[in-house]
């Protein structure tokens, strides 16, 4: 029945086949134990039944010793079993082992169940035995047996006295008779009277003889006379011994001799005195026959009396024997009950203990732990259920581990994807702002921060609060209109930041959660300002090309006609000729101006695509600025180059043209301002050309700053438009060409304040890959 752990291994060095199973698991040993127990019970029953046939002495001796020893042995066994369990209970409780109390309770219950009835049976049985033993003896029986014994023994005593008297009288009658020399017939005649008169049945006469070797006296038979009714004595030797003893002076002068034919022979001996009281001459042995009936009855009486008396004397030992039988059975029951309790407890506890260990093993993660069921009873079913549970747990554990592995892998993938998207969001020029479902700003990427001027503090704040800023209100309005909008397509929103107009294409999308409502909003926006500018430039280039084409054609005939008029009127009167000369000169001059203007238009319209090569920016700047060395006394040009600037990929000629154009504009502004007294109260003008490297953005910046009067914010965006100029002379195409060159190089150009005074043009070019 007891299950075993499937993974259990035999002790080190022991063969599995050589392990002897414990007693509780060995049916053969159990059967032998039960057989021995039954044999002991049967032996006790047989002994109790045959106790009446055994002598009281034997019962009170050997049997009492045996049963007492058996009682003590079983008592010691009971004490040992109980003490062992108590000690084990104490040890197991100290070690906090489970189920120790249960086993103790089970043993105590078994012992308690059997102790009370067994002790009751013992007490009742003991009282019954004692009462029965007391009833064995009673005063009437005592009196009867004592009287009977007194009668029998008195009868024997009387016969002994009588025979002794006869022996004395015969010995006296033979006093002084020399038995050795006397006539045997005379002696016979003398003693025959005693026999014939029936006083005794047998008279034997011995004479004393002296032994030659040691000088001791001895007797030899002389004559004997017996009645015919006396059975032939089987052993006359007894009379000889009696005579010898009496002659030797023994006090034992009579005997009772049982006869083989039945009855007893009472013998008495007397010495035959010598002459004048001298040494005895012989011994007379007189015998009286007690018939068989008398002797038998007397002996039965005596035996009954002795048996009764012995029973009385041995009353306590005999009671002790029977009580010991009861005690033995009681102890046997108690030992058996205790052992049975321990046995049952072990049988119950072992699978429970193994299940407990198995549960702990499962708790420790050993899901492969199994218990081998050995029986199909309730414990076997319990073990099967445990194993099934353990198997289910193992399968679930494996599924869980696989799920965890998949989840970890997916988490890694999601994390990678998140980082990938985050990197993209951080790197792309498109601004992305996510707004959570609760209306707070979730993320703001770097482009969005740059375009919208938002900081990290905006994350976590309500979107309505963030976009309530004056320059971002159009975005806020767009966000507010999003729930009602059906078309999530992009819209163009114009923002004004730091005095500049920024055109942003915004696409706001509401995120949809699976099975739920809105999951927030994502706003994606691009800075389309350069695109718009390029569109405008392209428009202007088309206009310029048309203007150049339409204007250039009539200019040449006009110029030729004016020169023809001047030649025709060269011979005309002076006033007329002077007038013609003046008018034709004006016409030719204006035509030349128009041609120059048309050339610029043509150049603006037909600007070639840049042929980019890696360019050392500082060398290019030095080369361009060297042209201005010594040209202007009132303007100073400084260099503020960064120590390390990577090469940029650009068309050197176009980039040089950009630098020269910007420096020319700055010098012209400074000199014009100097003429007007607007520069530093007559101080020398300063142009600073600098470089910087924004590694994080991957761009190189070229700045051209002056300390002139500066550019009003409202004019800054118009500066790069074609045909817009703040100068009295100029086509208004210089900065437009500059912007076009920079845009076609993938860069950007902006104008801003130079601190408190002047303006700064900033050109951003991508670094060479």
């Amino acid at each position, binding site marked *: 029945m007891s299950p075993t752990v499937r993974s259990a291994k035999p002790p080190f060095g022991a063969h599995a086949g050589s392990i002897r199973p414990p007693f509780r698991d060995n049916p053969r040993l159990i059967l032998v134990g039960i057989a021995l127990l039954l044999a002991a019970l049967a032996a006790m029953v047989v002994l109790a039944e045959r106790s009446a046939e055994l002598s009281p*002495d034997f019962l*009170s*001796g050997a049997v*009492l*010793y045996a049963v*007492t*020893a058996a*009682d*003590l042995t079983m008592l*010691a066994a009971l*004490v*040992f079993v*109980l*003490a062992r369990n*108590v*000690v084990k209970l104490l040890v197991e409780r100290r070690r906090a082992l489970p189920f120790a109390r249960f086993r103790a309770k089970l043993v105590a219950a078994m012992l308690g169940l059997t102790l009370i009835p067994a002790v009751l049976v013992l007490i009742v049985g003991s009282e019954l035995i004692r009462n029965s033993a007391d009833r064995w003896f009673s005063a009437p029986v005592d009196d009867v047996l004592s009287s009977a*014994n007194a009668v*029998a*023994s008195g009868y*024997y*005593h009387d016969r*002994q006295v009588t025979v002794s008297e006869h022996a004395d009288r015969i010995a006296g009658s033979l006093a002084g008779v020399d038995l050795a020399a006397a006539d045997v017939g005379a002696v016979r005649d003398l003693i025959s009277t005693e026999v014939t008169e029936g006083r005794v049945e047998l008279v034997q006469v011995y004479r004393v003889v002296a032994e030659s070797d040691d000088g001791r006296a001895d007797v030899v038979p002389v004559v004997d006379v017996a009645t015919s009714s006396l059975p032939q004595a089987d052993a006359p030797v007894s009379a000889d011994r009696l005579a010898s003893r009496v002659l030797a002076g*023994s*006090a*034992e002068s009579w005997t*009772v001799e049982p006869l083989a034919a039945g009855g007893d022979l009472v013998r008495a001996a007397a010495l035959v005195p010598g002459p004048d009281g001298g040494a005895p001459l012989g011994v007379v042995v007189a015998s009286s026959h007690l018939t068989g009936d008398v002797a038998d009855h*007397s*002996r039965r009486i*005596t035996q009954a*009396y*002795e048996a009764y*008396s*012995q029973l*009385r*004397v*041995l*009353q*306590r*030992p005999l*009671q*002790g024997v029977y*009580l*010991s039988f009861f005690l033995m059975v009681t102890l046997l029951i108690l030992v058996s009950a205790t052992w049975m309790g321990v046995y049952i407890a072990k049988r119950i506890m072992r699978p429970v203990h193994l299940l407990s260990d198995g549960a702990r093993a499962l708790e420790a993660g050993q899901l492969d732990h199994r218990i081998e069921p050995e029986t199909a009873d309730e414990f076997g079913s319990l073990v099967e259920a445990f194993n099934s549970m353990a198997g289910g747990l193992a399968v679930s554990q494996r599924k869980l581990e696989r799920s965890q592995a998949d989840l970890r892998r997916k988490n890694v993938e999601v994390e990678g994807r998140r980082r990938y998207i985050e990197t993209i969001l951080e790197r792309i020029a498109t601004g992305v702002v996510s707004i959570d479902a609760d209306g707070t700003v979730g993320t703001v990427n770097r482009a969005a921060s740059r375009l919208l001027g938002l900081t990290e503090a905006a994350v976590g704040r309500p979107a309505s609060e963030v976009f309530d800023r004056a320059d971002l209100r159009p975005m806020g309005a767009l966000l507010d209109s999003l729930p009602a909008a059906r078309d999530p397509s992009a819209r163009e929103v114009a923002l004004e930041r730091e005095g500049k107009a920024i055109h942003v294409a915004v696409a706001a999308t509401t995120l949809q959660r699976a099975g739920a409502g809105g999951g927030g909003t994502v706003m994606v926006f691009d800075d389309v300002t350069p695109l718009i500018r390029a569109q405008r430039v392209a428009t202007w280039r088309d206009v310029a090309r048309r203007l150049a084409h339409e204007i250039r054609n009539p200019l040449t005939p006009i110029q030729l006609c004016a020169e023809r008029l001047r030649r025709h009127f060269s011979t005309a009167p002076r006033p007329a000729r002077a007038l013609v000369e003046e008018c034709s000169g004006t016409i030719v001059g204006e035509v030349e101006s128009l041609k120059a203007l048309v050339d610029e238009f043509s150049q603006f319209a037909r600007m070639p695509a840049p042929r980019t090569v890696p360019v050392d920016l500082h060398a290019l700047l030095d080369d361009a600025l060297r042209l201005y060395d010594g040209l202007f006394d009132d303007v100073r040009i400084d260099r503020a180059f960064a120590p390390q600037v990577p090469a940029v990929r650009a068309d050197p000629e176009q980039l040089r043209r950009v630098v020269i154009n910007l420096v020319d504009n700055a010098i012209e502004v400074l000199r014009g301002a100097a003429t007007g007294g607007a520069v530093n109260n007559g101080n020398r003008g300063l142009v600073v050309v600098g470089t910087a490297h924004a590694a994080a953005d991957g761009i190189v910046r070229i700045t051209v700053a002056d300390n002139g009067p500066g550019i009003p914010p409202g004019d800054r965006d118009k500066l790069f438009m074609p045909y817009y100029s703040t100068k009295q002379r100029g086509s208004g195409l210089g900065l437009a060409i500059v912007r076009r060159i920079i845009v076609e190089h993938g860069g950007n150009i902006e104008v801003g304040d130079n601190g408190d005074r002047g303006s700064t043009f900033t050109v951003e070019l991508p670094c060479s890959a």
Partner: protein
Amino acid sequence: MLLRGAAGRGVSWRGVLTNLGRGVGVTLCALLVLVPALVAADLVRVRPLHRDGQIFVSFELTDAFSEEMRAAIRSGLPTTFSYDVELRRAIRFWFDSTVASTTVAASVQYDNLTRRYHLSRTQDGRVDTSEVVDNEETARDTMTTFDRLPLFSATPLEANSEYYLRVDARTRPHNGWFAWPWSRATASGSAKFTFIP
């Protein structure tokens, strides 16, 4: 017990019950050691005598013929008084050594029909004397009084050394409720003497 004077002595079991483990040992010790010692009283008078290279021993068992004993004898039960006589030498801080030992027994069986006592004496199972007497006093003396028995040789004894004779008496039959298998004696006595050659 047939002999009087086996005084009982109270044993406290409270301590035994308080600690069962210790109690088991105490119980066994009490059963094996204390009980035999308690029942053995000093009721045998012993007198040694050295003469002619022999140690003569005289001893007498007193108060042996109680009414119970007389009743047992009168009932016809064979009754035996067995005496274990040991010649021992005391050793300080160690167990005493036994120089020699012998067993003397006296048996009696009363014949209720003839009113006579059949007496016999044995030494180490060998019958020494056998007689039949009518007198109870004679029978009692035969059973309990032993005069100058030449039991031991003085040869192994050391001169001027101290010895003692110990006599343990047992009676049979047993008439108690329980028989104690390990009882040593129902009565005992001893006598010291200095051996002077």
